[in-house]
């Protein structure tokens, strides 16, 4: 098959992953982060949290998610852990344990923050 996509491409898991959640077409990167933070909405976070193994998002989860989003929407970057601790009043251990995947791959992902490592695309 001269022009078929090489199987190797498929194996890489590269590029975007598009999904429909709660009736909305959403764009994610290969690590499951929102491609566009403005596509995020609360119900998507609830559904993604459920998929990640959380029965429901508690008020503590939401406190973290809201802080992350507010920080990003003001500063244009994700907070470092020290800023997250100060902003939520939670310890690092509590924060890491609160979200499956920890802060980076859990909390930030559910909060719809872009993946800072995604940089090759778009260029």
């Amino acid at each position: 098959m001269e022009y078929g996509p090489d199987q190797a491409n498929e194996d890489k898991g590269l590029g975007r992953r598009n999904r429909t959640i709660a009736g909305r077409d959403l764009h994610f990167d290969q690590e499951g982060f929102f491609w566009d933070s403005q596509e995020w909405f609360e119900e998507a976070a609830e559904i993604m949290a459920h998929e990640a193994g959380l029965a429901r998002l508690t008020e503590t989860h939401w406190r973290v998610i809201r802080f992350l989003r507010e920080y990003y929407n003001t500063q244009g970057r994700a907070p470092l852990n020290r800023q997250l601790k100060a902003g939520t009043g939670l310890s690092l251990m509590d924060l890491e344990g609160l979200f499956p995947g920890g802060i980076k791959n859990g909390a930030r992902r559910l909060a719809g923050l872009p993946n800072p490592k995604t940089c090759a695309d778009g260029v």
Partner: protein
Amino acid sequence: MRSVNLTINGRQRRVVTTADKVLLDLLRDDLGLTGTKQSCDKKGQCGACMVIINGRAVRSCLTKVASLEGADIITVEGLGTPENPHLIQEAFVLSGAIQCGFCTPGMIMSAKALLDKDPDPDEEAIKKALRHNICRCTGYTKIIDAIKLAGRFLRGEITPDQVRPDPDGPKVGVSHPRPSALAKACGTAEFTADIKVPGTLALAVVRSPYAHADIKGVDSSLAEKMPGVAGVMTAKDIKGTNRLKLAIADRPLLCEDKVRSLGEAVAIVAAETPEKARAAAEAVKVDYQVLEVLDSPAKALAEGAPQLHPHSPNLCYSQPQIKGDAEAALAGSAAMVEHRFSTSIIHQSPLEPEACVAWLEEDPEGDEPILTVVGRSINIHAHLAGLQAALGYENMRYLEAYSGGQFGLKLEITSEGIAAAAALHFQSGVRYIPSLAESMLMTSKRHSFNMKVRMGADDQGRITAYTNDFMVDKGAYFSIGQGILVRTLGMLSGSYNIPNIKALGKIVYTNNPYGSAARGAGPPQGNFALECTVEMMARKLGQDSLDFRLKNSLLPGQTKSTGRAAEQWPIPELIEKIRPHYDRAVAEAAAHKEGPVRRGVGLGCGSFGISLAGDAAVAAVELDPDNGVSVYAAAADPGEGNDAMFTQLAAHMLDLPLDKVRIHLRDTDNTTAAGPAAGSRITFMVGGALQDAINQLKEAMEEAGARTYQGLVDAGKPVRYLGRKKTTFAAPPMDPETGQGPGFEVEIHAIQMAEVEVDIETGQASVVKMTAVVDAGTAINPQNIMGQLEGGMDMGAGLALREKYVAGETTDWKTYKFPTMEYYFDKEVLIHETPRINATQGAIGVGEMALVPTAPAIINGIYDAAGVWVTNLPATPDKIKAALAGQG
């Protein structure tokens, strides 16, 4: 030891020196005069270390301190300061002669020595005086202009104030001096190696002498016992993933059990001094089992070739592109051209070698210290995240120093990974200042391409079809991997309307240096094949080269190779603008068609896409208490002039004086994560995000009925606004099976003309002049656009005629054939302005387009001069001679 009395910048000093110590080290290391730079490994090849000794320009790296008894020495710091600059420093700033600024102090010192003796030098005198100074950014044009202007200043014919644009006049469309230029001219801009941190350990790296080997063991016991050695670390001492990931996590920070390319890092030695660290690194014993080296895609794809990575076959990615039915169109074409093209592995060659300084400092808010990394990343937030993952450490900060060029190379983490890992492991501040030779080993390169193309045309001279099967040497690691194919295919049809396209790009792992971003990253190679094929077709059909391009130019509404319809396509206007220059050049060349040196004229078009579908950027603006503004965006400026763009843009939109705009681009603690300073995207994407932020601020001002900080605060309005810019998210840039899709959001266009001479006895080809007409939309700072074109054409000429990186053989600027003043050629740049829809005040970036049409224009010029096609770059004299012999 010897005591030497000398005078430095008017101050008498007595220094005690060893017999072999050179002046460069005395100035930089002992006296802190870091305006004097070092690029080459003290071989006298770069001139960045030029100072004046007893009235003569001298390379301080070659000058023993012991020989300087009684000498009167002037360094760049002895000329002027940003507050009170020397007229030569002002001339460099006002002429746009300063881009990255790394070569600038050395250039200025050579200029000073010249002008002291000859206040009105002609161009030849200037070129001779600067023969030991090299520059990668400018193509030397504006440096020569600066020295001529400095002469006028010094002769009292004109003053800087008469040349300087009115700072209160228009902010856009005017070449206001770059905000950083004066600090670079005066040697006060700190590059990474200029930064001193007390108590740091020096690092040396044990690098593999083999391109492919298994590591059976590392014995550092002897090295660890050597005097002054703090320790040795290997991959097992790294707590994170030990992977420096872009698209795929395949590149280790330190090799674990396998080496896949020459010079990969295996161990890090930390010691009191660089000398002790290097001596100990020599004593580390690594047990390698050498493996077969796959030094070409052909070898890597051969049956039975070892698989270089466990996660993938050596053919690691492929992407087709199909538009229409190329085979049918070719079968029905009146004329067909078929040819093979290849390009070499190229070093991006920023003048500044690799360097990184890292240290730990107490975090008053945290329980682990902050690891601060100073490097020259062009994507500091992504590199911060990459280092956090690789090292398993969170509390970090990345500061970008001034950068001595980069041209795509710093999309990758290199020396910063070494220094950050060592700072954490040894719990100490560290300095890693590798040699140029070592820097070349560790950095990414421009990919080499091998392309087989066919083009058809009808009897009216319209291109009917184009095919390109191309193989890309990926080297040892994936890096931007698929991006190189998407970018090449996204611009495959260049400036033309080609209804039928069939292409297949493949990238192949080898044991060569890994390819990554490199000014244009793919399209310069693809456009080389396209533009030479267009020329071949024009000649086959007996049509004029310029008219053939005009006839086949894409027009608004027609589609590119991706199937995306063009909205704006000013190529026909650019062609008409270059026509009088082309007619003049053709007429002049006609007089040089006989004899040993023959002249030809070659053309190349380029339509360079910026920002693929799915790109996004954020930038912030904040109204300051004095009613000026601060701009925040991690948008590196390694020489292109982003600092000027942001400043002029904000001042223009807010009607502010330039000095009321403060830009913050280089610190992860206060910038937005704006994406990479790559792909010519900063003006369009990050400038676009800033434009959005400023519009929000202006809206708030209007609602508040006030334009002041206090007015906004009193009205309860925020003073900080986050702006966004994104391209379409409707579909990925390219369908994986057809290569069709939205591709790039906007294009910059250019046509370039090369006037070339070929000595048919020696095979030596020389560029006499390059002329460019460029359309980057609104010209925010015309001088910056011209500077990018001039430097880009110089780089493109290197790609065409000289440059080739061979790992292990290319070790310095001489073996790389870096473009010196010897290869200088005239350049003329004409700016055409078609403000772009949805762009930043109509403006887009220019940095990469600058070289996209250059190499094919030169190769087409060689054909016009000598009647031979040399399409295996670089077109060195031996290849041209062989082609001439074959012709005979």
